[in-house]
């Protein structure tokens, strides 16, 4: 006789429920429809084994933690900013994305991971904001405040795809907490993403299956790492649709939502 949540259940039922727990633990994190970077939550990541001949699908925390940070408190300070003893504010440092051009620069926190610990981040689509500057009715000049329109971007005919990532393990020196964290590599925007992410002109480094395999398992020199990291996925193989501005709070965040008078994206390249 065993207990499960305070309910008396049979031994067989207890085993069934425990087995179900293990299976759900592996299954649960794959079906999130929306990952918000600033939540610093867990994501599905393909991590190569030590022999570099196979991989596991594991959960990692999105937001690369540099090894020099000692405790969670230090991590939170880095991520959210803080005031020091003199009252001076230190702004937040975001490590959700690793800019491909800077991956291997001396002194950058990502260099060792880019050389030794490359991974793939599973995605079914990602979200980005397009900045539209309405024209002033009197002057005809663009207003300074943008109207921000969210888009959901996917790869055509692909239920999921791979983004290049780099990962690092980290241990809290005060509590012993161990986590694996990652950053998504970004590259310059292609013709589609230039229009959507028009404030920063960047996009995640999306890899086709051959490059994904090479990124994860290849014995790459620095030149090749930078080449793959800068891969710009073809515009013709991607698509984008507008979604509701409150997509973070709704049941189906990727549901198409039309905005009146919104200039259409140019798809003819």
């Amino acid at each position, binding site marked *: 006789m065993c207990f499960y949540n305070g309910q008396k259940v049979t031994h067989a*039922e207890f085993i069934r*429920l425990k087995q*179900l*727990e293990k*299976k*759900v633990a592996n*299954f*649960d994190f794959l*079906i999130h429809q929306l990952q918000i970077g600033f939540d610093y939550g867990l994501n599905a990541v393909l991590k190569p084994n030590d022999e570099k001949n196979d991989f596991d699908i594991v959960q990692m925390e999105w937001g690369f933690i540099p090894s020099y940070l000692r405790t969670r408190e230090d991590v939170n300070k880095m991520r959210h900013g803080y005031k020091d003893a003199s009252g001076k504010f230190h702004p937040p440092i975001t490590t959700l994305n690793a800019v491909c051009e800077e991956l291997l620069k001396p002194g950058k926190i990502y260099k060792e991971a880019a050389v030794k610990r490359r991974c793939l981040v599973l995605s079914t689509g990602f979200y980005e904001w397009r900045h539209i500057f309405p024209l002033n009715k009197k002057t005809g000049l663009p207003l300074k405040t943008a109207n921000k329109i969210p888009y959901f971007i996917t790869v055509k005919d692909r239920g999921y795809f791979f983004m290049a990532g780099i990962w690092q393990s980290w241990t809290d020196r005060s509590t012993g907490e161990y986590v694996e964290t990652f950053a998504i590599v970004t590259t310059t925007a292609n013709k589609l993403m230039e229009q959507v992410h028009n404030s920063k002109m960047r996009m995640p480094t999306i890899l086709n299956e051959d490059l994904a395999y090479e990124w994860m398992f290849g014995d790459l020199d620095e030149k090749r790492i930078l080449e793959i990291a800068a891969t710009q996925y073809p515009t013709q193989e991607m698509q984008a649709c507008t979604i509701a501005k409150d997509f973070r709070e709704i*049941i189906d965040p990727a549901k198409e939502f039309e905005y009146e008078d919104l200039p259409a994206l140019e798809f003819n390249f």
Partner: protein
Amino acid sequence: MNPGDDNFEIEVAGGKAKVQRHSISEQMIFRVIFLVKIPPLVLTHATRENGNRFWTSIPKGRQSEAEEIGKLIAEHFKPKQ
């Protein structure tokens, strides 16, 4: 249960929640996604030693929520008059 009802919505305190039905190793589980900031809940139907059925969370630990939401899911699948 209707085989087509793999995704549906239920009314919970504070608004709607999205329910996804999945089968894992021939076991039926329900994943409930809330619109407010409550972590998703996975629940299943289990059997007590005395044979009575009850709803429980997977993993364990969210029993009261499982019982409350489980009733709403059962209600959803009741034959409509």
